[in-house]
Protein backbone atom coordinates (compact mmCIF):
# COMPACT_ATOMS: atom_id res chain seq x y z
CA UNK A 1 0.00 0.00 0.00
CA UNK A 2 2.77 2.32 0.97
CA UNK A 3 4.57 1.24 -2.15
CA UNK A 4 1.65 2.09 -4.34
CA UNK A 5 1.40 5.45 -2.77
CA UNK A 6 5.07 6.01 -3.46
CA UNK A 7 4.74 5.06 -7.13
CA UNK A 8 1.68 7.26 -7.42
CA UNK A 9 3.52 10.12 -5.81
CA UNK A 10 6.48 9.57 -8.12
CA UNK A 11 4.18 9.57 -11.14
CA UNK A 12 2.51 12.78 -10.02
CA UNK A 13 5.91 14.37 -9.39
CA UNK A 14 7.06 13.51 -12.90
CA UNK A 15 3.71 14.41 -14.45
CA UNK A 16 3.85 17.87 -12.90
CA UNK A 17 7.15 18.49 -14.60
CA UNK A 18 6.88 16.63 -17.90
CA UNK A 19 3.12 16.33 -18.53
CA UNK A 20 3.14 12.54 -18.81
CA UNK A 21 -0.65 12.52 -19.14
CA UNK A 22 -0.34 14.07 -22.61
CA UNK A 23 2.10 11.37 -23.65
CA UNK A 24 -0.10 8.59 -22.29
CA UNK A 25 -3.04 10.06 -24.11
CA UNK A 26 -1.03 9.99 -27.33
CA UNK A 27 0.05 6.38 -26.79
CA UNK A 28 -3.54 5.40 -26.04
CA UNK A 29 -4.63 6.66 -29.46
CA UNK A 30 -2.16 4.51 -31.36
CA UNK A 31 -3.74 1.45 -32.95
CA UNK A 32 -2.36 -1.44 -34.92
CA UNK A 33 -4.66 -2.55 -37.75
CA UNK A 34 -5.68 -6.22 -37.64
CA UNK A 35 -5.91 -8.13 -40.90
CA UNK A 36 -4.47 -11.30 -42.36
CA UNK A 37 -1.13 -9.58 -43.04
CA UNK A 38 -0.74 -8.27 -39.46
CA UNK A 39 1.94 -10.86 -38.79
CA UNK A 40 4.43 -8.82 -40.80
CA UNK A 41 4.14 -5.88 -38.41
CA UNK A 42 6.19 -7.79 -35.87
CA UNK A 43 9.41 -8.05 -37.85
CA UNK A 44 10.33 -4.40 -37.52
CA UNK A 45 10.13 -4.80 -33.75
CA UNK A 46 12.15 -8.01 -33.83
CA UNK A 47 14.87 -6.27 -35.86
CA UNK A 48 14.88 -3.44 -33.35
CA UNK A 49 15.16 -5.89 -30.46
CA UNK A 50 18.08 -7.69 -32.09
CA UNK A 51 19.75 -4.34 -32.72
CA UNK A 52 19.49 -3.74 -28.98
CA UNK A 53 21.10 -7.13 -28.32
CA UNK A 54 23.91 -6.19 -30.72
CA UNK A 55 24.56 -2.94 -28.90
CA UNK A 56 24.65 -4.59 -25.48
CA UNK A 57 26.77 -7.63 -26.44
CA UNK A 58 28.96 -5.41 -28.63
CA UNK A 59 29.75 -3.13 -25.70
CA UNK A 60 30.58 -6.17 -23.57
CA UNK A 61 32.96 -7.53 -26.24
CA UNK A 62 34.63 -4.12 -26.44
CA UNK A 63 35.89 -4.55 -22.88
CA UNK A 64 38.28 -7.33 -23.95
CA UNK A 65 38.70 -7.04 -27.71
CA UNK A 66 41.97 -5.58 -29.08
CA UNK A 67 41.77 -4.17 -32.61
CA UNK A 68 45.21 -4.90 -34.03
CA UNK A 69 46.49 -7.49 -36.49
CA UNK A 70 48.78 -9.03 -33.92
CA UNK A 71 46.27 -9.17 -31.06
CA UNK A 72 42.73 -9.33 -32.47
CA UNK A 73 42.60 -13.09 -33.03
CA UNK A 74 44.24 -13.83 -29.68
CA UNK A 75 41.94 -11.45 -27.81
CA UNK A 76 38.89 -13.29 -29.15
CA UNK A 77 40.51 -16.59 -28.23
CA UNK A 78 40.93 -15.09 -24.76
CA UNK A 79 37.28 -13.98 -24.65
CA UNK A 80 36.12 -17.43 -25.70
CA UNK A 81 38.35 -19.51 -23.46
CA UNK A 82 39.27 -17.45 -20.41
CA UNK A 83 36.58 -14.83 -19.79
CA UNK A 84 33.58 -16.21 -17.89
CA UNK A 85 30.68 -16.57 -20.34
CA UNK A 86 32.84 -14.91 -22.98
CA UNK A 87 31.99 -17.71 -25.42
CA UNK A 88 28.30 -16.99 -24.82
CA UNK A 89 28.52 -13.25 -25.35
CA UNK A 90 30.50 -13.65 -28.56
CA UNK A 91 28.26 -16.41 -29.85
CA UNK A 92 25.14 -14.39 -29.09
CA UNK A 93 26.65 -11.36 -30.86
CA UNK A 94 27.38 -13.40 -34.00
CA UNK A 95 24.07 -15.23 -34.05
CA UNK A 96 22.08 -12.12 -33.26
CA UNK A 97 23.81 -10.31 -36.15
CA UNK A 98 22.66 -13.02 -38.53
CA UNK A 99 19.12 -13.17 -37.16
CA UNK A 100 18.94 -9.38 -37.31
CA UNK A 101 19.83 -9.36 -40.98
CA UNK A 102 17.29 -12.12 -41.63
CA UNK A 103 14.56 -10.29 -39.80
CA UNK A 104 15.48 -7.03 -41.57
CA UNK A 105 15.19 -8.88 -44.90
CA UNK A 106 11.71 -10.15 -43.95
CA UNK A 107 10.63 -6.73 -42.68
CA UNK A 108 11.86 -5.02 -45.84
CA UNK A 109 10.25 -7.43 -48.27
CA UNK A 110 6.97 -7.48 -46.35
CA UNK A 111 6.76 -3.69 -46.61
CA UNK A 112 7.65 -4.01 -50.28
CA UNK A 113 4.92 -6.53 -51.08
CA UNK A 114 2.24 -4.73 -49.05
CA UNK A 115 3.30 -1.45 -50.73
CA UNK A 116 3.77 0.17 -47.34
CA UNK A 117 6.31 2.46 -49.04
CA UNK A 118 3.60 4.30 -50.98
CA UNK A 119 2.79 7.96 -50.30
CA UNK A 120 2.97 9.37 -47.68
CA UNK A 121 5.55 6.88 -46.32
CA UNK A 122 8.29 7.21 -48.95
CA UNK A 123 10.88 8.43 -46.48
CA UNK A 124 10.12 5.63 -44.04
CA UNK A 125 11.09 3.24 -46.85
CA UNK A 126 14.19 5.24 -47.80
CA UNK A 127 15.42 5.44 -44.20
CA UNK A 128 14.71 1.73 -43.77
CA UNK A 129 16.62 0.66 -46.88
CA UNK A 130 19.56 2.88 -45.94
CA UNK A 131 19.58 1.26 -42.51
CA UNK A 132 19.49 -2.14 -44.19
CA UNK A 133 22.60 -1.27 -46.21
CA UNK A 134 24.26 -0.02 -43.03
CA UNK A 135 23.39 -3.27 -41.28
CA UNK A 136 25.03 -5.18 -44.12
CA UNK A 137 28.03 -2.86 -43.68
CA UNK A 138 28.06 -3.66 -39.97
CA UNK A 139 28.01 -7.37 -40.83
CA UNK A 140 30.83 -6.96 -43.32
CA UNK A 141 33.04 -4.83 -41.06
CA UNK A 142 32.35 -6.96 -38.00
CA UNK A 143 33.24 -10.11 -39.91
CA UNK A 144 36.87 -8.93 -40.22
CA UNK A 145 37.36 -8.14 -36.54
CA UNK A 146 38.33 -11.70 -35.42
CA UNK A 147 41.13 -11.46 -38.03
CA UNK A 148 40.74 -15.03 -39.21
CA UNK A 149 41.49 -16.57 -42.59
CA UNK A 150 37.95 -16.47 -43.97
CA UNK A 151 37.43 -12.90 -42.84
CA UNK A 152 40.73 -11.80 -44.33
CA UNK A 153 39.87 -13.02 -47.82
CA UNK A 154 36.24 -11.94 -47.56
CA UNK A 155 37.52 -8.44 -46.84
CA UNK A 156 40.08 -8.64 -49.62
CA UNK A 157 37.37 -9.60 -52.13
CA UNK A 158 34.72 -7.26 -50.71
CA UNK A 159 36.95 -4.20 -50.78
CA UNK A 160 38.34 -5.17 -54.19
CA UNK A 161 34.74 -5.17 -55.45
CA UNK A 162 34.45 -1.54 -54.35
CA UNK A 163 37.77 -0.89 -56.07
CA UNK A 164 36.37 -2.08 -59.40
CA UNK A 165 34.03 0.89 -59.72
CA UNK A 166 35.35 3.07 -62.55
CA UNK A 167 37.18 6.30 -61.56
CA UNK A 168 36.13 6.54 -57.87
CA UNK A 169 36.89 2.87 -57.14
CA UNK A 170 40.58 3.27 -56.28
CA UNK A 171 40.12 6.10 -53.72
CA UNK A 172 37.22 4.16 -52.14
CA UNK A 173 39.35 1.04 -51.91
CA UNK A 174 42.18 2.92 -50.22
CA UNK A 175 39.73 4.65 -47.90
CA UNK A 176 38.23 1.31 -46.88
CA UNK A 177 41.53 -0.53 -46.52
CA UNK A 178 43.49 2.31 -45.00
CA UNK A 179 46.14 1.61 -47.62
CA UNK A 180 46.62 -0.48 -50.72
CA UNK A 181 46.32 -3.88 -49.10
CA UNK A 182 44.22 -5.45 -46.39
CA UNK A 183 46.41 -5.03 -43.31
CA UNK A 184 46.34 -3.99 -39.68
CA UNK A 185 45.34 -0.53 -40.90
CA UNK A 186 42.22 -2.09 -42.44
CA UNK A 187 41.40 -3.75 -39.15
CA UNK A 188 41.66 -0.41 -37.28
CA UNK A 189 39.37 1.21 -39.81
CA UNK A 190 36.81 -1.55 -39.85
CA UNK A 191 36.82 -1.46 -36.06
CA UNK A 192 36.04 2.27 -36.20
CA UNK A 193 33.28 1.72 -38.76
CA UNK A 194 31.85 -1.20 -36.83
CA UNK A 195 31.73 0.20 -33.32
CA UNK A 196 31.28 3.93 -33.92
CA UNK A 197 30.39 5.22 -37.37
CA UNK A 198 27.86 2.62 -38.49
CA UNK A 199 26.01 2.38 -35.15
CA UNK A 200 25.82 6.18 -34.99
CA UNK A 201 24.37 6.38 -38.49
CA UNK A 202 21.93 3.53 -37.82
CA UNK A 203 20.77 5.16 -34.60
CA UNK A 204 20.16 8.48 -36.35
CA UNK A 205 18.16 6.83 -39.12
CA UNK A 206 16.35 4.65 -36.60
CA UNK A 207 15.14 7.69 -34.67
CA UNK A 208 13.83 9.19 -37.92
CA UNK A 209 12.29 5.88 -39.04
CA UNK A 210 10.42 5.47 -35.76
CA UNK A 211 9.42 9.13 -35.64
CA UNK A 212 7.90 8.82 -39.13
CA UNK A 213 5.92 5.77 -38.05
CA UNK A 214 4.73 7.49 -34.87
CA UNK A 215 3.66 10.54 -36.83
CA UNK A 216 1.89 8.71 -39.66
CA UNK A 217 0.63 5.56 -37.96
CA UNK A 218 1.02 2.09 -39.38
CA UNK A 219 0.42 1.43 -43.03
CA UNK A 220 -2.40 -0.85 -44.12
CA UNK A 221 -1.73 -3.07 -47.15
CA UNK A 222 -2.86 -1.61 -50.46
CA UNK A 223 -6.48 -2.44 -51.22
CA UNK A 224 -7.41 -2.88 -47.57
CA UNK A 225 -7.36 0.71 -46.40
CA UNK A 226 -10.85 1.62 -47.62
CA UNK A 227 -12.50 -1.24 -45.81
CA UNK A 228 -14.26 0.15 -42.77
CA UNK A 229 -12.21 -1.05 -39.82
CA UNK A 230 -14.52 -1.99 -36.98
CA UNK A 231 -13.42 -1.29 -33.43
CA UNK A 232 -12.63 -4.94 -32.69
CA UNK A 233 -10.37 -5.15 -35.77
CA UNK A 234 -7.89 -2.70 -34.32
CA UNK A 235 -5.45 -3.53 -31.61
CA UNK A 236 -4.42 -0.78 -29.22
CA UNK A 237 -0.65 -0.42 -29.47
CA UNK A 238 -0.42 0.07 -25.73
CA UNK A 239 -0.55 -2.28 -23.98
CA UNK A 240 -1.94 -5.03 -26.28
CA UNK A 241 0.45 -4.91 -29.24
CA UNK A 242 3.40 -4.04 -27.05
CA UNK A 243 2.82 -7.06 -24.85
CA UNK A 244 2.62 -9.32 -27.89
CA UNK A 245 5.81 -7.68 -29.13
CA UNK A 246 7.50 -8.35 -25.80
CA UNK A 247 6.35 -11.96 -25.81
CA UNK A 248 7.80 -12.44 -29.27
CA UNK A 249 11.05 -10.79 -28.18
CA UNK A 250 11.23 -13.26 -25.33
CA UNK A 251 10.84 -16.12 -27.80
CA UNK A 252 13.52 -14.61 -30.05
CA UNK A 253 15.85 -14.29 -27.07
CA UNK A 254 15.31 -17.96 -26.27
CA UNK A 255 15.95 -19.03 -29.85
CA UNK A 256 19.10 -16.92 -29.77
CA UNK A 257 20.26 -18.56 -26.55
CA UNK A 258 19.64 -22.04 -27.95
CA UNK A 259 21.56 -21.25 -31.14
CA UNK A 260 24.42 -19.61 -29.25
CA UNK A 261 24.77 -22.49 -26.79
CA UNK A 262 24.29 -25.47 -29.09
CA UNK A 263 25.90 -24.03 -32.22
CA UNK A 264 28.69 -21.84 -30.86
CA UNK A 265 30.29 -19.54 -33.39
CA UNK A 266 33.59 -20.79 -34.78
CA UNK A 267 36.74 -18.69 -34.63
CA UNK A 268 38.67 -20.48 -37.39
CA UNK A 269 42.35 -20.05 -38.21
CA UNK A 270 44.30 -16.85 -37.74
CA UNK A 271 44.69 -14.83 -40.93
CA UNK A 272 47.98 -15.10 -42.82
CA UNK A 273 48.32 -12.46 -45.53
CA UNK A 274 50.83 -14.68 -47.34
CA UNK A 275 48.80 -17.87 -47.52
CA UNK A 276 46.54 -19.00 -50.34
CA UNK A 277 42.80 -18.54 -50.03
CA UNK A 278 41.50 -21.81 -48.55
CA UNK A 279 39.32 -24.09 -50.67
CA UNK A 280 35.60 -23.83 -50.00
CA UNK A 281 35.87 -20.16 -49.04
CA UNK A 282 32.61 -18.26 -49.18
CA UNK A 283 31.18 -15.14 -47.61
CA UNK A 284 28.36 -14.98 -45.07
CA UNK A 285 25.00 -16.21 -46.38
CA UNK A 286 23.62 -12.72 -46.92
CA UNK A 287 26.33 -11.91 -49.46
CA UNK A 288 26.30 -15.35 -51.04
CA UNK A 289 23.90 -14.58 -53.89
CA UNK A 290 26.13 -11.73 -55.05
CA UNK A 291 29.24 -13.86 -54.63
CA UNK A 292 27.68 -16.67 -56.68
CA UNK A 293 26.63 -14.22 -59.39
CA UNK A 294 30.20 -12.93 -59.65
CA UNK A 295 31.37 -16.52 -60.04
CA UNK A 296 29.04 -17.06 -63.00
CA UNK A 297 29.77 -13.85 -64.87
CA UNK A 298 32.21 -14.54 -67.72
CA UNK A 299 35.55 -12.75 -67.59
CA UNK A 300 34.74 -10.58 -70.61
CA UNK A 301 31.44 -9.11 -71.77
CA UNK A 302 31.79 -7.02 -74.96
CA UNK A 303 35.49 -6.44 -74.20
CA UNK A 304 34.62 -5.10 -70.73
CA UNK A 305 35.66 -6.88 -67.55
CA UNK A 306 32.76 -9.10 -66.51
CA UNK A 307 33.04 -8.36 -62.81
CA UNK A 308 32.89 -4.60 -63.38
CA UNK A 309 29.59 -5.08 -65.17
CA UNK A 310 28.29 -7.35 -62.42
CA UNK A 311 29.27 -4.89 -59.71
CA UNK A 312 27.75 -1.94 -61.57
CA UNK A 313 24.51 -3.88 -62.07
CA UNK A 314 24.28 -4.62 -58.35
CA UNK A 315 25.03 -0.96 -57.64
CA UNK A 316 22.27 0.22 -59.95
CA UNK A 317 19.87 -2.33 -58.45
CA UNK A 318 20.66 -0.99 -54.98
CA UNK A 319 19.94 2.61 -56.02
CA UNK A 320 16.67 1.57 -57.72
CA UNK A 321 15.70 -0.30 -54.56
CA UNK A 322 16.08 2.88 -52.48
CA UNK A 323 13.96 4.75 -55.03
CA UNK A 324 11.13 2.19 -55.18
CA UNK A 325 8.45 4.55 -53.75
CA UNK A 326 9.27 7.13 -56.41
CA UNK A 327 9.23 4.59 -59.23
CA UNK A 328 5.93 2.98 -58.27
CA UNK A 329 3.85 6.15 -58.00
CA UNK A 330 0.66 4.33 -59.02
CA UNK A 331 0.41 2.57 -55.68
CA UNK A 332 0.03 6.00 -54.03
CA UNK A 333 -3.13 6.46 -56.10
CA UNK A 334 -4.42 3.12 -54.90
CA UNK A 335 -3.49 1.18 -58.03
CA UNK A 336 -1.68 -2.07 -57.41
CA UNK A 337 0.91 -2.58 -60.13
CA UNK A 338 1.29 -6.30 -60.72
CA UNK A 339 4.75 -5.77 -62.21
CA UNK A 340 6.07 -4.59 -58.84
CA UNK A 341 4.90 -7.84 -57.25
CA UNK A 342 6.56 -9.88 -60.00
CA UNK A 343 9.80 -7.92 -59.66
CA UNK A 344 9.74 -8.54 -55.91
CA UNK A 345 9.08 -12.25 -56.38
CA UNK A 346 11.87 -12.40 -58.95
CA UNK A 347 14.33 -10.73 -56.55
CA UNK A 348 13.42 -13.05 -53.68
CA UNK A 349 13.61 -16.15 -55.91
CA UNK A 350 16.92 -14.98 -57.38
CA UNK A 351 18.41 -14.44 -53.93
CA UNK A 352 17.20 -17.81 -52.65
CA UNK A 353 18.27 -19.72 -55.77
CA UNK A 354 21.74 -18.19 -55.92
CA UNK A 355 22.23 -18.61 -52.18
CA UNK A 356 21.45 -22.32 -52.48
CA UNK A 357 23.76 -22.58 -55.50
CA UNK A 358 26.45 -20.87 -53.44
CA UNK A 359 26.21 -23.63 -50.86
CA UNK A 360 26.05 -26.64 -53.18
CA UNK A 361 28.55 -25.58 -55.88
Amino acid sequence: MANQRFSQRLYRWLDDRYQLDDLLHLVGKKYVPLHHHSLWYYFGGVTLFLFGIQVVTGILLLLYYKPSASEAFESIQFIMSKVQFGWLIRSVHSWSANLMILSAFIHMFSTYFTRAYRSPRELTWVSGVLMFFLVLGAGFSGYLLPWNELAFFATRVGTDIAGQIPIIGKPILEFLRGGEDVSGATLSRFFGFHVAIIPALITTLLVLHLAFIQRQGMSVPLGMEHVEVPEEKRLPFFPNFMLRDLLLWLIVLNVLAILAVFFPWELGKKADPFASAPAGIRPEWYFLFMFQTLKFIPSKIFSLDGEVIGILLFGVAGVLWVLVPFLDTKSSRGIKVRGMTYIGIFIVMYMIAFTILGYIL
Partner: protein
Amino acid sequence: MPGFPPTGTEQRRSFLKYLLGGSFIAWLVAVLYPVFAYLKPPKVGEVEVSSIKVGKVNDFSPNSGKVVRFGNKPAIIIRKPDGSFAAFTAICTHLACTVQYRPDLGLIWCACHNGKYDLNGKNIAGPPPRPLEPYKVILKGDDIYITREA
Protein backbone atom coordinates in the same frame (compact mmCIF):
# COMPACT_ATOMS: atom_id res chain seq x y z
CA MET B 1 10.18 44.42 -58.92
CA PRO B 2 10.15 43.49 -62.60
CA GLY B 3 11.07 46.18 -65.07
CA PHE B 4 12.57 48.46 -62.49
CA PRO B 5 16.28 48.78 -61.97
CA PRO B 6 17.26 47.41 -58.58
CA THR B 7 17.32 50.00 -55.88
CA GLY B 8 20.39 50.61 -53.80
CA THR B 9 19.02 48.61 -50.88
CA GLU B 10 18.41 45.55 -53.08
CA GLN B 11 21.86 45.73 -54.59
CA ARG B 12 23.38 45.90 -51.15
CA ARG B 13 21.19 43.07 -49.98
CA SER B 14 22.15 40.71 -52.82
CA PHE B 15 25.80 41.68 -52.42
CA LEU B 16 25.63 40.76 -48.74
CA LYS B 17 23.81 37.53 -49.59
CA TYR B 18 26.60 36.44 -51.94
CA LEU B 19 29.24 37.54 -49.50
CA LEU B 20 27.63 35.58 -46.69
CA GLY B 21 26.94 32.52 -48.86
CA GLY B 22 30.47 32.60 -50.25
CA SER B 23 32.03 32.86 -46.82
CA PHE B 24 29.86 30.01 -45.61
CA ILE B 25 31.08 27.76 -48.44
CA ALA B 26 34.68 28.80 -47.81
CA TRP B 27 34.20 28.02 -44.12
CA LEU B 28 32.70 24.62 -44.97
CA VAL B 29 35.65 23.77 -47.23
CA ALA B 30 38.09 24.86 -44.53
CA VAL B 31 36.36 22.52 -42.05
CA LEU B 32 35.85 19.55 -44.33
CA TYR B 33 39.19 19.56 -46.15
CA PRO B 34 41.26 18.48 -43.13
CA VAL B 35 38.70 15.78 -42.32
CA PHE B 36 38.82 14.28 -45.81
CA ALA B 37 42.59 14.61 -45.98
CA TYR B 38 42.79 12.81 -42.64
CA LEU B 39 40.73 9.90 -44.01
CA LYS B 40 43.17 9.35 -46.87
CA PRO B 41 45.78 6.92 -45.58
CA PRO B 42 49.36 8.21 -45.81
CA LYS B 43 51.77 6.46 -48.15
CA VAL B 44 53.83 4.09 -46.08
CA GLY B 45 57.38 3.79 -47.32
CA GLU B 46 57.17 0.49 -49.16
CA VAL B 47 60.36 -1.47 -49.39
CA GLU B 48 60.92 -1.89 -53.09
CA VAL B 49 61.84 -5.50 -53.53
CA SER B 50 63.21 -6.54 -56.86
CA SER B 51 64.45 -10.01 -56.09
CA ILE B 52 64.06 -12.64 -53.39
CA LYS B 53 65.52 -16.03 -52.66
CA VAL B 54 62.75 -18.62 -52.37
CA GLY B 55 64.76 -21.72 -51.48
CA LYS B 56 66.73 -24.56 -52.97
CA VAL B 57 65.82 -26.63 -56.00
CA ASN B 58 65.44 -29.74 -53.87
CA ASP B 59 62.84 -27.99 -51.66
CA PHE B 60 60.39 -28.30 -54.52
CA SER B 61 59.23 -31.60 -55.88
CA PRO B 62 57.93 -31.56 -59.46
CA ASN B 63 54.21 -30.76 -59.71
CA SER B 64 54.12 -28.53 -56.61
CA GLY B 65 53.79 -24.88 -55.74
CA LYS B 66 54.31 -22.50 -52.83
CA VAL B 67 53.15 -19.01 -51.94
CA VAL B 68 56.02 -16.79 -50.80
CA ARG B 69 56.33 -13.22 -49.68
CA PHE B 70 57.58 -10.81 -52.38
CA GLY B 71 57.90 -7.39 -50.72
CA ASN B 72 54.43 -6.62 -49.42
CA LYS B 73 52.66 -8.95 -51.85
CA PRO B 74 52.32 -12.69 -52.15
CA ALA B 75 53.98 -14.48 -55.09
CA ILE B 76 53.61 -18.08 -56.18
CA ILE B 77 56.45 -20.29 -57.35
CA ILE B 78 55.67 -23.49 -59.19
CA ARG B 79 57.77 -26.44 -60.14
CA LYS B 80 56.10 -27.84 -63.22
CA PRO B 81 55.76 -31.60 -63.75
CA ASP B 82 58.70 -31.44 -66.20
CA GLY B 83 60.91 -30.03 -63.41
CA SER B 84 61.15 -26.45 -64.70
CA PHE B 85 60.16 -23.42 -62.57
CA ALA B 86 57.75 -20.56 -63.08
CA ALA B 87 56.72 -17.71 -60.77
CA PHE B 88 53.88 -15.23 -60.80
CA THR B 89 52.21 -12.73 -58.57
CA ALA B 90 49.81 -14.76 -56.41
CA ILE B 91 47.08 -12.14 -56.54
CA CYS B 92 44.14 -13.27 -58.63
CA THR B 93 43.30 -10.71 -61.33
CA HIS B 94 39.59 -11.17 -60.61
CA LEU B 95 39.06 -9.93 -57.05
CA ALA B 96 42.49 -10.15 -55.46
CA CYS B 97 42.32 -13.46 -53.57
CA THR B 98 45.57 -15.36 -53.18
CA VAL B 99 45.84 -18.22 -55.69
CA GLN B 100 47.31 -21.69 -55.10
CA TYR B 101 48.78 -24.52 -57.13
CA ARG B 102 46.53 -27.54 -57.61
CA PRO B 103 48.68 -30.61 -58.27
CA ASP B 104 45.59 -32.69 -59.09
CA LEU B 105 44.64 -30.31 -61.92
CA GLY B 106 48.15 -29.18 -62.81
CA LEU B 107 46.82 -25.63 -62.72
CA ILE B 108 46.93 -22.44 -60.70
CA TRP B 109 43.58 -22.12 -59.00
CA CYS B 110 41.77 -19.41 -57.05
CA ALA B 111 39.51 -20.75 -54.32
CA CYS B 112 37.38 -17.63 -54.09
CA HIS B 113 35.58 -17.71 -57.43
CA ASN B 114 36.98 -20.84 -59.07
CA GLY B 115 39.32 -18.98 -61.45
CA LYS B 116 41.94 -21.09 -63.27
CA TYR B 117 45.27 -20.19 -64.86
CA ASP B 118 47.61 -22.44 -66.82
CA LEU B 119 51.26 -22.84 -65.94
CA ASN B 120 52.15 -19.80 -68.05
CA GLY B 121 49.85 -17.70 -65.85
CA LYS B 122 47.25 -17.36 -68.58
CA ASN B 123 43.64 -17.14 -67.40
CA ILE B 124 41.92 -20.14 -68.94
CA ALA B 125 38.67 -20.65 -67.00
CA GLY B 126 36.37 -18.89 -64.57
CA PRO B 127 36.03 -15.16 -64.03
CA PRO B 128 39.64 -13.84 -64.05
CA PRO B 129 39.93 -11.19 -66.78
CA ARG B 130 43.73 -11.06 -67.18
CA PRO B 131 46.73 -13.36 -66.85
CA LEU B 132 48.87 -13.36 -63.71
CA GLU B 133 51.86 -11.05 -63.87
CA PRO B 134 54.94 -13.29 -64.31
CA TYR B 135 58.20 -13.08 -62.37
CA LYS B 136 61.53 -14.26 -63.67
CA VAL B 137 62.99 -17.36 -62.03
CA ILE B 138 66.77 -17.43 -61.79
CA LEU B 139 68.72 -20.49 -60.73
CA LYS B 140 72.11 -19.72 -59.19
CA GLY B 141 73.69 -23.03 -58.50
CA ASP B 142 71.24 -24.74 -56.20
CA ASP B 143 69.43 -21.56 -55.11
CA ILE B 144 66.25 -20.25 -56.66
CA TYR B 145 65.63 -16.49 -56.95
CA ILE B 146 62.63 -14.73 -58.37
CA THR B 147 62.85 -11.20 -59.74
CA ARG B 148 60.58 -8.70 -61.38
CA GLU B 149 60.76 -8.92 -65.15
CA ALA B 150 62.68 -5.91 -66.39
